[in-house]
């Protein structure tokens, strides 16, 4: 049996024993620090009322072109609960900050939003434990957001004379839902082949490789024969910025083939992107200053894949720059 250190002979402690004793007693300090720390953590929990008052401040000064975010990201559900009526699904699933004029952040625990400009906030107000921050964003006008015009697009499957027109359908209600089920099929969409239920084109929200929401146009490739979405009368501006990705669960194993995207203006290819597993929400930028093209043109986005199995591709694009 181990000799108890508090045996009777220990009544006259030596210097060494006292030193060791102090070290053992330091463990009592660990307990006290942990206990105090626990209550400090509790005291720093943000009260519901602080969120409500901070949201009220934002709500009173909010205007079109404002974007609202949470910092840190895990507080996002609380911000959406308080201000969700001011956040459209397209804003929550934005690709970048183009088109927004101001960025609001409801920040706790000293966090700063990742998207914040590298400059001091023009507004910084503490509302209890919540800081309301606001930045003015660099101007980057969006002339045309393709996700807003899906219905107007002419969608076809195949090439040449064999190309079939996909039909615009209003089914009355969306379809899908559940973990691993992939993005929701919207109630309104272009249906390309009823026998292949994944061949439709329409707007939805997809989780990208970082699990971020992406409001985008689902355009699952059919194989080598292209699915084309042609948008008429698009203000071309200076450039077209396109982002695209495959649904998280179909990309994360990095075991499937590439998806090819070609963007054409008035039938002339202006940009190509190949998305490979692991690329995530990939950006492509193409000049729309095509010789002979006017201020407006017809933009076609064509998607193919050598092997379309589980190529759940979704993209979002805008034209940007001056529309003069």
């Amino acid at each position: 049996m181990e000799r108890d250190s508090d045996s009777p002979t220990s009544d006259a402690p030596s210097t060494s024993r006292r030193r060791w004793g102090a070290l053992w007693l330091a463990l009592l300090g660990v307990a006290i620090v942990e206990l105090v720390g626990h209550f400090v953590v509790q005291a720093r929990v943000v009260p519901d009322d602080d969120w409500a008052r901070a949201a009220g401040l934002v709500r009173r000064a909010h205007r079109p072109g404002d974007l609202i975010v949470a910092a840190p990201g895990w507080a996002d559900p609380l911000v959406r609960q308080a201000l969700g009526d001011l956040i459209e699904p397209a804003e929550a699933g934005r690709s970048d900050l183009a088109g927004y004029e101001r960025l609001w952040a409801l920040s706790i625990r000293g966090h700063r939003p990742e998207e914040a400009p590298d400059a001091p906030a023009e507004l910084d107000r503490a509302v209890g434990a919540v800081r309301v921050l606001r930045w003015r964003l660099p101007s980057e006008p969006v002339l045309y957001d393709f996700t807003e015009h899906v219905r107007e697009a002419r969608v076809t499957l195949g090439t040449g004379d064999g190309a079939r027109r996909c039909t615009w359908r209003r089914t009355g209600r969306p379809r899908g839902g559940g973990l691993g089920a992939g993005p929701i099929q919207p109630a309104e969409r272009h249906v390309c082949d009823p026998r292949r239920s994944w061949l439709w084109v329409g707007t939805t929200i997809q989780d990208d490789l970082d699990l971020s929401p992406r409001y985008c146009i689902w355009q699952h490739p059919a194989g080598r024969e292209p699915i084309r979405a042609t948008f008429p009368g698009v203000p071309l501006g200076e450039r077209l910025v396109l982002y695209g990705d495959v649904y998280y669960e179909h990309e994360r194993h990095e075991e499937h083939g590439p998806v090819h995207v070609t963007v054409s203006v008035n039938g002339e290819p202006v940009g190509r992107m190949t998305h490979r597993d692991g690329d995530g929400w990939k950006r492509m930028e193409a000049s729309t200053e095509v010789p002979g093209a006017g201020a407006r043109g017809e933009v076609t986005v064509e998607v193919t894949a050598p092997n379309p199995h589980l190529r759940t591709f979704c993209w979002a694009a805008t034209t940007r720059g001056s529309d003069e």
Partner: protein
Amino acid sequence: MRFRWIGWRDHLLGLALGAAYVAALLVGSRDVGMARDEGFYVVAAERYGAWFERLFEDPSAATTREAVDAAWSYNHEHPSLVKSMFALSHLAQERWELFAQPSMAYRFFGMLCGGLLLWVIYVFGARVYGRAVGAFGALAFALIPRVFYHSQLAAFDVPIVLMMTLVTYCYWRSLTDARWAIVTGLVYGLALETKHNAWTLPAIFLIHFLFVVFTERRAREAGAPKRVSYVPWWLLSMALLGPPIFVGLWPWMWWDTVPRFGEYAGFHLNHVHYNMAYFGVNYFRPPLPMSFPWVMTLFTVPLVTLALAVAGVGARLRALIPPGLLERVWPKGGVEPDPSRTDVLLFGSMLAPLVVISMPWTPIFGGTKHWFSAYPYLALFAAVAFVRVAGAARRWLPDRVPLRRHTARVGAAAVLLAPPLVETIHSHPFGLSHYTFAAGGVPGAADHGMNRQFWGFTTGSLTEWFEERMPDGGTVWICDTTWSAWRMLQRDGRLAENIRATGDLVNADYAIVHHEHHFVEVDYQIWAAWGSVAPVHVLTYDGVPIISVYEHPRHARREGDVP
């Protein structure tokens, strides 16, 4: 090292600790929603229960292959012993109404195992290091927040820790008393029938036994008398008694035993990988970072318990050094290794589960429960340090303090167990969402991007909200909660019968999202389907979102919440 004699008073004290724990678990379990896996085990237990009833009525009909397979094939990826106990407990509930809620009847055996485990830890600790170590060790184990949570469940995780600790204790006794080898084999059979974690025990014991044999050989060479046998009677007993008990208690194994065992083993050897968030990354295939079980232990076991355990290992370090090396590196010291190399056994039993989970080829299980079998020994080493702290406190106390030894021990225990007690109470009923001070608490863990929950059990914390919000009933899409778990909330009287679960997300009146990293997909589906990103309610724990509740706009319009 001479081991302390344990008498009936010790067993009584151990049982009293266990009984108090079971009482606390029974009270606590009222608030804990049924977890995903529990739902499957409840279904299995109901089938087993029906079979038991048939067995009592008509044994020959019940023991036909058709009858056995019909009852015991479900959930055959896990052995049947624990689920059988759930079934018998529930049959007792049906007959005598012993428990306040049906869920308690299924969960009671798990709680009982939690209580018995404290008894075993107390006896083990008291016999090896003294009563103070046994008592403190049992309490330190009981007051690990996630242990407290899992001890309330109808699951295998705490029963297997009980069985593994008990087998280890019996093995340790068998080293100096061959009669215990028989008990070791019997208990090992029960452990095999509890959960597959028991497969690792022979390897741990073999490594330890090498220490014992080499220590014994050197002692005999130095002229010492025989103290332990070179013959591993325990291993023979485990090999001979374990498999028959395993097969005998599991009716599904009675036919096609070899292929069925292959199917059972194959399930675990080729286990699916769960999603697990760790420092902001959602891992879904191995390898998980090797640091995972160590950091999760740091973040979920009270810091003071860990600090004590490290200090306790330090205090016993000399007894951990292999024979041959000890004489050269640390020839003299206050701690002597005993012939059974008990410290090595406890240290190895503490490390082994963590090491196994750290291996890059180990499937992603995610939960800390998978290395709970380390914690009894961690608690015992913590208790070794506690005795040192109490001894130091006694020397620092003024002479005028009455009963210095007892005052120091009680005072030190009160201070050292206060954080674990406070944290365990605070963790309830969000056990799996709880993180300790070392992680910065629950918000700190959220900042670090750690997993927030799994199994969908937190739905149990929403029942009052749903009852208030849905007086006329309706449908709820229940995300990670199983149908049987939802049904149990209704059977327990916590949720109205007319608030129904549905698998149709798009048309549900309400939908919930359990906040795990990979479940954001469901948030996005709801946004797309219902056209709004705004939840109507967010269940939080320490200010951190646990569940978002969305309301279908059609339902909101009907209820007049929106124009």
